[in-house]
């Protein structure tokens, strides 16, 4: 019974995954579509067909690892080598097509031409039937343009064509159904006039102002004969350096990475940002840990009553989503009208002065970090066997000695890996900075991108999504990879140091 139930659940889940795969394929996300087909098959195979026990434990984790870690990392790795940004989002064909359609010039003095949608009775192809000029009738689509005899066409007083020999004029409901095919129809008349349906009733006549030559890979402005050639940044450029928009996405190699050194704009505030990133992270881990440790020692005292209640209260900052609490803090810090300034009767420019903004960031970060530090310290202290402490006491160690020589090393040994992890997190503490100060107050001469409380990742964010080109995904990916490398290095160094500490014991 239970087996059958599990069986049904497995298949149902597999089908859901297949359905998701279908959605991704529909949106042309080939990788994700492929991934979900494979994972659906794999899950059904492992849980319902083969029943291999190790697989049951490994498969879900592996699939999630691929989906949420490997795929995004791989994707940003790919993006980092492109110029993916506003103005460079399209493929080359899309971009050239966009330039040509956007520069179409409507033919002046020509009334919109009424048309009817019809289906050829023999080939079943869709044609547009229209008269242009007066009493000359045509049936056309992108491939062919056929003249019709006046006698073969039935024209109503309102200018509507209701019948044509050899064609079946579609009803309005059928026209709506066929509408998604109509948008691709371009009828080419002589004199370079193009007719395209502007809605379900009318054609608009226009002339192209650009022509694309596939052979020579250039755009030609028809009226002047000026040519535009693609440059290595994925954009058509004229001989005098004039750029045509939109551009397209191209591979730019290491350019995004080297821009950290090469681009004056990015480089200038980098040292200050880097210094504050490290200073902020180290300070917050050290102060947070000391604060947490002192609290843990205090609340571990056997003389204290209702310890559980105190401990529960200390968890509150950890339990409140930091998105909420940071926004509340930013309200508290408001100059003059904020709670802090009102209570203390001061006029501190908390968030608008570099020094005070940094203090405010540290206060909020401390508030968020200390409960975690308190928790792990409490755990570590309670894990120390009482006999050791007692033995120390018997040996005549003072409270201070027993703390510094026995408790602290033992605590550190347990929590050191957690501290390294906390440091890595603090180096990437985007949320607090972004919500509290937005990185501000802005440095003069940083062109508005970097501020006194900006850490590396928030600076990256502003460079990438606030720069003059709008969103610059390529640069963002490259910088976040560099950020990752930096934090990985610091963490590896931290873990190495930790190993040597283990040797002490």
């Amino acid at each position, binding site marked *: 019974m239970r*087996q059958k139930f599990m069986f049904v659940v497995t*298949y149902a889940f*597999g*089908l859901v995954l*297949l*359905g998701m*795969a*279908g959605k991704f*394929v529909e*949106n*042309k*996300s080939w990788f994700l579509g492929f991934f979900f*087909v494979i994972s*659906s*098959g794999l899950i059904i*195979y492992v849980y*319902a*067909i083969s029943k291999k026990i190790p697989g049951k434990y490994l498969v879900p984790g592996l699939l999630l690892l691929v989906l949420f870690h490997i795929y995004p990392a791989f994707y940003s790795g790919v993006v980092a080598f492109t110029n993916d940004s*506003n*103005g460079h*989002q*399209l493929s080359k064909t*899309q*971009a050239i097509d966009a330039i040509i*359609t*956007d520069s179409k010039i*409507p033919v002046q003095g020509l009334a*919109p031409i009424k048309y009817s949608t019809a289906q050829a009775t023999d080939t079943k192809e869709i044609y547009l039937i229209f008269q242009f000029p007066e009493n000359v009738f045509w049936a056309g689509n992108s491939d062919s343009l056929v003249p019709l005899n006046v006698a073969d066409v039935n024209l109503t007083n309102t200018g509507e064509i209701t019948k044509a020999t050899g064609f079946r004029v579609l009803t309005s*409901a059928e026209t*709506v*159904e*066929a*509408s*998604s095919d*109509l*948008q691709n129809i371009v009828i080419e008349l002589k004199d370079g006039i193009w007719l395209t*349906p*502007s*809605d*379900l009733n009318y054609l*608009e006549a226009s002339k192209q102002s650009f022509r694309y030559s596939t052979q020579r890979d250039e755009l030609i402005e028809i009226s002047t004969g000026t040519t535009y050639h693609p440059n290595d940044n994925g954009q058509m450029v004229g001989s005098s350096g004039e750029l045509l*928009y*939109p551009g397209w996405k191209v591979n730019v190699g290491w350019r995004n990475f080297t821009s950290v050194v090469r681009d004056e*704009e990015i480089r200038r505030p980098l040292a200050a940002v880097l210094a504050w990133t490290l200073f902020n992270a180290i300070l917050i881990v050290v102060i947070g840990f000391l604060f947490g440790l002192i609290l843990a020692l205090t609340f571990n005292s056997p003389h204290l009553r209702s310890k559980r209640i105190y401990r529960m209260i200390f968890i509150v900052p950890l339990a409140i989503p930091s998105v909420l609490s940071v926004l509340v803090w930013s309200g508290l810090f408001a*100059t*003059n*009208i904020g709670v802090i300034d009102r209570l203390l009767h001061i*006029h501190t*420019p908390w968030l*608008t002065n570099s020094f005070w903004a940094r203090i405010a960031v540290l206060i909020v970060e401390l508030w968020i970090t200390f409960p975690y530090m308190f928790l792990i310290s409490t755990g570590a202290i309670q894990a120390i066997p009482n006999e050791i402490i007692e033995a120390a006491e018997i040996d005549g160690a003072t409270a201070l000695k027993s703390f510094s020589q026995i408790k602290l090393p033992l605590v550190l040994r347990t929590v050191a890996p957690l501290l390294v992890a906390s440091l890595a997190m603090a180096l990437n503490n985007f949320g607090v900075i972004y919500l509290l100060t937005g990185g501000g*107050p*802005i440095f*003069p001469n940083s*062109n*508005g991108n970097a501020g006194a409380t900006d850490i590396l990742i928030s600076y990256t964010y502003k460079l990438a999504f*606030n*720069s*003059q080109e*709008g*969103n610059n995904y390529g640069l963002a990916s490259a910088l976040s990879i560099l950020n990752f490398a930096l934090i990985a290095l610091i963490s590896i160094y931290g873990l190495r140091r930790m190993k040597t500490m283990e040797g002490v014991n």
Partner: protein
Amino acid sequence: MKLRRLGVGLLGASLALFGSIAPAHAASTLTIWVNGGDADAYKAASSDWAAKNNVTLNIVAKCGLGDCGMSKLGPAGAGPDLFFATHDNTGSLVKSGVVASLSSTINKTLYPAAVLAGVTSNYQQYGIPISVSNIALATNLALVPSGAPKTWKELESTATSLITSGKATVGIVTHLDGYFMQPFFESLGGYVFENKNGSYTNTKNIGLYSKTLAKNASLMDQWLSEKLFDKSNTYDGSAFTNGKAPYQVVGPWSIDGLDKAGVKYELSGIPSVNGGTARAFSGVSALYLNRFAKNKILAKQYLTEVVQTTAFSKAISTSNSSYPANIEAAAAIDKKSVIAKFGAYGALCLPMPNVAEMNTVWTYWNNSFADWASGKAKFGAAMQAASANLKNALAQG
């Protein structure tokens, strides 16, 4: 063993099923992404058309201030047919190539010229305007019984005498940033980009530190020291509602709060130092056509037969208390209503620049305002820096 065979069979069947459902796609579906909160109004106003033409309308509340993620989703083929955006995105949407021209669809006689200019880029219209919004000046009638100021002199003397007598703590409650300060900035002779007949075509002509502004800049410093503006830059709305500030720069979004606080106020335009009215930036919300839409023709048909009708404009404006872009629908609004007051000032306002370069302007301009407010720089020097930085950045871009 039996179960295993059944399993293999089911796996095969489900793969076959997947193959058959994936390409299925309805012939006449129209997907529209609208501003959060507007979805129901759109649905109600277009259901008749959808039923008549047998079109499935898929209206999703998804968009807000930005470009709805379209610069990424559009080219990937994951975008809707039509989407909502504010007009200041027009330039960057066009530059990215994700919107298609609506020049042949829009009926230009339905909209005021300034509104049309907002959705125009390179002489083509890219959006169908829905509504217009702008800031306005609220006068606290408890402090200023004579009502909204007719001239700048009146505003300044009323505010300063209230401050010196201790009745008020600040003259005008406002954010000290580009968007909110634009009317004051303009009345001193500053401008962002040259505007000709409502269009911004020459982004080389930057007026953040124009000659006239350079001459008048010290006035701003004087107003700051007179407490006409609050240098802590906190937008303390409670000062206005508590009767401690005679004036507040408000937007349509502030009205609910003012009404709830029960303060008596009058809305008006912001007077210019040179007489007449200073122009704030007006914003147009509009529907844009995705270049990669699955059904552009039907989308255009919908825009013509539904969105551009007076009835539709009225329906949307009633539902979200916005000022309609459609001239006829706007004329039908009660002249005494708050919406109409905003609209009356909005008609005089300047469309917010919709060129892609505007993104860069906000950064430098707002920073300079912040530097000035915090006392780091005099107004003239701050704007001179903004102007230089902006020119530098645009030259590099």
